[in-house]
């Protein structure tokens, strides 16, 4: 099958590559563009480990075709730090012990990043609902919820974003 040239913004950088129409976004990001932060956990869009931000929305990149990202904007965990400083969510996940094996963490962070844009001042229940597309086997979620809460507070104090 002939490969198509595609191009999109990945973590603020324009990337161009050749893909088969059937290639999944997660594979292209990880294997062709070498951004291995996003992981593959289930391949059936249940676990959320492959969550990336596509055009300002959280999506599961195991169930998006790379060609669908053509001309779009993609953010992965590698794009979270702003000019050298970690995102408040990244700090908070460490502070609150919101990760153990670290495998689900990039998907959690990228989802939480978008969730806090959608709802900057969430209750615990809203966080649990908003993060329900991401599975974690290690933490039991309590510390992840705490981390999202404390990041939200920090970001509010700093005037959002």
């Amino acid at each position: 099958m002939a490969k198509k040239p595609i191009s999109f913004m990945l973590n603020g950088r324009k990337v161009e590559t050749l893909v088969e129409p059937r290639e999944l976004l997660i594979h292209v990001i990880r294997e062709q563009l070498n951004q291995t932060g996003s992981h593959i956990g289930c391949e059936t869009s249940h676990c959320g480990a492959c969550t990336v931000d596509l055009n300002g929305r959280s999506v599961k990149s195991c169930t998006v075709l790379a060609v669908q990202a053509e001309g779009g904007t993609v953010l992965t965990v590698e794009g979270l730090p702003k000019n050298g400083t970690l995102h408040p969510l990244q700090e908070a996940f460490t502070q609150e012990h919101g990760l153990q094996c670290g495998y689900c963490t990039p998907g959690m962070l990228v989802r939480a990043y978008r969730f806090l844009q959608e709802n900057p001042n969430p209750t615990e229940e809203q966080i649990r609902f908003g993060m329900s597309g991401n599975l974690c086997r290690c933490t039991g979620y309590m510390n992840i919820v705490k981390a999202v809460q404390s990041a939200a507070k920090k970001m509010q104090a700093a005037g959002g974003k």
Partner: protein
Amino acid sequence: MIPGTFEYHAPSTVDEAIRLLGEYRDEAKLLAGGHSLLPMMKLRFAEPGHLIDLNRVQALKGIREQGGMIHIGAMTTENELIASELLRKKCPLIPEAARLIADPQVRNCGTIGGDIAHGDPGNDHPAIMLATEASFVLRGRGGERVVPADGFFLGTYSTELKADEILTEIRVASVPAGTGYAYCKLKRKTGDFATAAAAVQLQLDGKTCKKIVIALTNAGPTALKAKEAAAVLTGKTVDDKLIEQAAQKAMAICDPAEDLRGDREYKTHMAGEMTRRAIRQALARAQGK
């Protein structure tokens, strides 16, 4: 979990999509949210030669009000339904149900049109469409036709939609103030299909139930409209005894398939229980409680 090869088409207009559909016929599949089709292709059960991606057809997106009717583009995502002020005010049953579908990420991709046209009795919108008495705009090379939701769902994965047609728009009447509504869905966990679910929309005239529509999800080969259950309550002052009768009528039309969610008996009882709860909640809302 790798799909087979296919040619990818990303039309920007409905006409172009219809043309492609006509050109490739059985070889073609339409891609909306993709969260059912792509996994099926990854397992190599579905191997379409041509994939027609509707995500770039702007004309299929958006929610607007026109002459007392709300028009919802078929490619409007679940999260867009949830976010819609218009729907929350004028047809709150739709966003209420959308919140119970899949998970946040999937709701960013999943579309109301895909959910309906798929004709899967496990999907939630078919029952919601029956409960809101919606109608569907179907467009093919022969032009456009508008069909009511009631009668659109013929069997599992079988609908009125013809092979060369695309579902372009969903139309629902905006509900009068004081309309009660509820969607009660029992599921094993976030992201699961309903073990059983019931949708209710009702209007009161003083104390009596002027009008009520009840529809069931995943209780048979298609979404089911529980007409006799509704008849039990119409024109009456709804009380627990009548609700119980309605629930029994609803259970009587159930024909669910057994799976790991439960056997036929459990699913039928749950359809009844969701019906009771949906009626009660809709009633309470209609009474402004």
